[in-house]
């Protein structure tokens, strides 16, 4: 098998995997910290993509700028969603199930609001550099891949440092590991949950924008994205930021390798099949030894 093909497939596979990781980081966080499986996470990502699309086509604003600009917007929006919708279900007997049903409804609403605003036509994010590539020897680093990859690294690193180095971030981790004790030392769980949720949604926006640089999108695209979210989060381990990033790499590598070595017809099958086997043998993600 040709080395250039293999390496080239790996390059783009890994870059795309990282973009999925950025989209997944927030999903992992809400799931891990709040026990809320946020089905409309990808729909918020798609909303970010649409906002960036409009900013690009109307005002010529670069998607990277939009990714930064849409983050606070989505943050505020998510705070409202948290207050009105998520908060009430955190009192349910089974938060995971209740939150899934609720956010499933929210995803349908978001999808159709986007269909009303932006119409059902597919869109492509085409900034000036969209179809260029950085050429290193025989290898091509496509610009959208590079930008998506860079955004993902930046986004995931930002979340990582937020959790590791800031008081609020530490409070998020503390609230997750030991909610009672965290409260005793002054952590307001409600506020922390809201911040976690809103932060997650803002990273979804950046993830959606990165993904929109790679593939076309339509109002229903979030359904497909959601599947990748689940896979990345489960492989990486729920709530594990570094794990999520690595899971993106691993899934990207698997896809890249199967793209290089297998008939294309079998690529998706092998990817999902591998993930299934992986989950059977390492059901708690990459690092955790058990629940």
């Amino acid at each position, binding site marked *: 098998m040709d080395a250039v093909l293999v390496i080239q497939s790996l390059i783009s596979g890994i870059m795309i995997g990282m973009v999925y990781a950025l989209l997944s980081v927030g999903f992992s966080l809400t799931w891990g910290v709040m026990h809320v499986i946020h089905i409309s996470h990808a729909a918020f990502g798609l909303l970010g993509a649409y906002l960036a699309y409009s900013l690009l086509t109307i005002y010529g604003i670069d998607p990277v700028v939009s990714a930064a600009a849409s983050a606070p917007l989505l943050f505020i929006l998510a705070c409202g969603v948290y207050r009105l919708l998520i908060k009430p279900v955190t009192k349910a007997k089974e938060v995971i199930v209740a939150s899934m049903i609720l956010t499933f409804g929210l995803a349908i609403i978001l999808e159709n609001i986007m269909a009303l605003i932006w119409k059902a036509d597919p869109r492509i994010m085409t900034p000036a550099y969209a179809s260029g590539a950085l050429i290193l020897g025989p290898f091509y680093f496509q610009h959208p891949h590079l930008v998506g990859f860079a955004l993902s690294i930046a986004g995931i690193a930002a979340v990582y440092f937020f959790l590791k180095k800031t*008081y609020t971030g*530490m*409070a998020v*981790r*503390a609230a997750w*590991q*030991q909610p*009672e*004790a*965290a*409260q*005793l*030392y*002054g*952590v*307001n769980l409600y506020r922390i949950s809201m911040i976690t949720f809103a932060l997650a949604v803002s990273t979804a926006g950046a993830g959606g924008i990165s993904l929109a640089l790679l593939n076309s999108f339509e109002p229903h695209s979030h359904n497909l994205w959601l599947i990748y979210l689940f896979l990345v989060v489960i492989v990486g381990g729920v709530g594990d930021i570094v794990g999520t990033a690595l899971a993106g790499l691993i899934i990207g590598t698997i896809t890249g390798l199967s793209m290089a070595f297998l008939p294309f017809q079998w690529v998706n099958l092998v990817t999902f099949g591998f993930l299934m086997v992986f989950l059977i043998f390492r059901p708690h993600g990459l690092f955790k030894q058990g629940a």
Partner: protein
Amino acid sequence: MLRVDNITVCYGRMEALRNVSLEVAPGEMAALIGGNGAGKTTLLNAISGLVPATGGAISWEGKALKGFAPDRICREGIVQVPEGRKLFPAMTVEENLVMGAYLPTVRKGSREALAHVYEIFPRLADRRRQLAGSLSGGEQQMAALGRALMARPRLLMLDEPSLGLSPKAAAEIFAIVRQLNQEGMSVLLVSQEVLETLAITVRGYVLENGAVAMEGPSAALREDPQVKASYLGL
């Protein structure tokens, strides 16, 4: 300083506390003793604002505290070291300590506080980069106590600090608590080790089935035949 007046706490339809009153004077070390399920932890949690009290009042330096959220109560300087330590297991020892100074009011000067904690517990300084979940029981209790100190408490509430510790480690913890008290900190100590507890405290309360069964100077309680029979096995 802290006054608990006739509070009642219910879990569903079960009354966990019934008309409980208690007081801790400034600089005092008070004891709260009682058997399993007597409601000791519930009382601390009610003071800390973790569980809502349905009736009665809690006041702190004349201020009404009942109904306040836990973070508000922590801000007042009432800090609890919860039963079973409840450290943040996947965070390092240092992160655990830093979390103690989470409130903005105590964040300033937390560096000095950290140095002070390491001074009191040199073992924690050695283990500062280690995950809290990997510590031994005694070290965990030290970390939990250290974390509480980071919040600069004026009233320290300790829930079963010696539970599951070796006698040596327990003695060490008690010694430190005693020293803290002597430096002026008010302490409310909850423990099943009745003898030791009553030995180092001034006043004590005996909780039974969610109500105060007895109260008085610790020395007197130690001599009380009923206490002797129920808790000291004499």
